[in-house]
């Protein structure tokens, strides 16, 4: 239980086509993350899967069964909304239990499941409170809890952590990972946070303007981006893109090298250049330099380094980690 097949899903609002034929297979128990720039259609796709929005075209199968005409309630899904969407008038407990109650589950059963979920999410002390009396992180957990108790085949998360601050974010992320391990349910997750995507996903789906750019495991995308878009989108700071011509490479139009795959030295190296700006992050140092061969180059160094603006430095890329792209921006393998 919990597999999902999307076949040429299209969705238009009026004449504006938001999803342009999405094909995707998600196997049971997988953790799939959608990433992509703002407005590319991630939420819309999630909502189509949930049945909150009708696709203009295409087929959606959950566990092999066509669900296009099945209302959201009957699809065996649970959705966690970006804005939590808790029922403001119900206590935490009732928020979590309402769905079960509606389905006519016996009170005993509801009690057990809610208390199990609340234990898992450390919500026990708050069961009697209403959403307004909870902090952001707690609300987030209630929203997740509400999804869990229904033990759905399929979880849908829409940027569930976007409103949390750094510390809470890390903590909740770990909880979701644990959840996935324990429940073994299929999860589909939208985020724009690189770290979340890299750490949580079995499979990342990169979307752009309503179409899928690449599907793969996090490290696959990091190491073997299919095209310039994916290469640029995955990784922060962004990959450096250099005109292949300038480097004398033939058979490629663009060469990409990630900031962390460039070594810096004051003495010698492949590309000579001048430091433009340095950012000290403590754990890392980001050096922005201008070289004749490459133009502006971002270099990420581990730990602290005392480079200063206008220093003359030499950069040496790790040739094995270079990416080559053709005239159509596709990766050359």
């Amino acid at each position, binding site marked *: 239980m919990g597999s999902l097949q999307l076949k040429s899903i299209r969705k238009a609002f009026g004449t504006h086509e938001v999803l342009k034929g999405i094909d995707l297979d998600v196997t049971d128990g997988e953790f799939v993350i959608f990433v992509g720039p703002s407005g590319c259609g991630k939420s819309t796709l999630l909502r189509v899967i949930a*049945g909150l929005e009708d696709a203009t075209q295409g087929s959606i199968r959950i566990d092999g069964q066509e*669900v296009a005409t099945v*209302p959201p309630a009957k699809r065996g899904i649970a959705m966690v909304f970006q804005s939590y969407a808790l029922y403001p008038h119900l206590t935490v407990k009732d928020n979590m239990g309402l769905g079960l109650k509606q389905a006519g589950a016996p009170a005993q059963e509801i009690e057990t499941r809610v208390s199990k979920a609340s234990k898992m999410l450390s919500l026990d002390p708050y069961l009697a409170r209403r959403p307004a009396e909870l902090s952001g992180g707690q609300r987030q957990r209630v929203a997740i809890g509400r999804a869990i108790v229904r033990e759905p085949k399929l979880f849908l998360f829409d940027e569930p952590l976007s409103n949390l601050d750094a510390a809470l974010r890390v903590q909740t992320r770990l909880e979701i990972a644990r959840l996935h391990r324990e429940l073994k349910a299929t999860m589909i997750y939208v985020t724009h946070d690189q770290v979340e995507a890299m750490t949580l996903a079995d499979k990342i789906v990169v979307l752009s303007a309503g179409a899928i750019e690449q599907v793969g495991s996090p490290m696959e995308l990091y190491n073997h981006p299919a095209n310039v878009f994916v290469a640029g989108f995955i990784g922060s700071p962004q990959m450096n893109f250099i005109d292949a011509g300038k480097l004398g490479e033939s058979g490629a139009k663009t060469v990409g090298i990630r900031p962390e795959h460039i070594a810096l030295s004051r003495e010698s190296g492949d590309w000579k250049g001048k430091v433009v700006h340095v950012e000290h992050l403590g754990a890392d140092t980001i050096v922005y330099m201008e070289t004749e061969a490459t133009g502006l180059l971002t270099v990420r160094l581990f730990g602290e380094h005392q480079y200063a603006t206008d220093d003359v430095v030499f950069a040496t890329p790790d040739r094995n980690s270079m990416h080559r792209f053709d005239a159509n921006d596709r990766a050359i393998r």
Partner: protein
Amino acid sequence: MAKATQSPIRSGFVHLALIAYTLIALFPVFLTIINSFKAKNAIFREPMAVPTPSTFSLVGYETVLKQGDFLLYFQNSFVVTVVSIFFVLLFGAMAAFALSEYRFRGNTAMGLYLAIGIMIPIRLGTVAILQGMVAANLVNTLTALILVYTAQGLPLAIFILSEFMRTVSDDLKNAGRIDGLSEYAIFFRLVLPLVRPAMATVAVFTMIPIWNDLWFPLILAPGESTKTVTLGSQMFIGQFVTNWNAVLAALSLAIFPVLVLYVIFSRQLIRGITAGAVK
């Protein structure tokens, strides 16, 4: 493709129910209008039938338009209604802003004081009001009506508007303050435009009793030159109470202006324009 979000059966039922109620709501109005175009015997014999060539008659409208200066009455009603609404909205919004924006001593008391007016019908003050108007030499002027309606509309306007004004983002007003806007500029340039839907609601709620009022026009401005359309048509009904053609025609005529005013305001009704102000 079939819809998952909307079952056609359910929305069919909803339309059915809404159409049913719409019929209930419109039926009497419809009845008035179709019969106003019929000859007297037809009104009586077949009240439900639409006018046919044999029953069609404009005699009602002819009677109405011959009698009294209805165009002038309409104009008076328009002036009174529009000017009163303007002042109610302006003064009401200003007071609501003061009450909702600032914390000062007596704020709650002032709010309660201004709400008393919702509870007592202003009609009770008629004699004192009339005496005041006589003293101010305002009898038989539209000004008298405008003053009364403004006072009458203020309590509810303040009540509703201050609820809405509380929802205007503080950050927005503070941004204005930092931008160097005075409190007046904040009110006029930021808050007023943002509560336009609420203003429209208040305008509609204020408009109805003003347009339809019979009492104060009768007392304060019964003169021919200041007569309002409601007073005009009421007299008409008194005068032609058995002349249903004329009465129905007068009633039909009186429905339209208020409907037009409503349509003007209702564009603003319900939906806000605060989208994009804050994230």
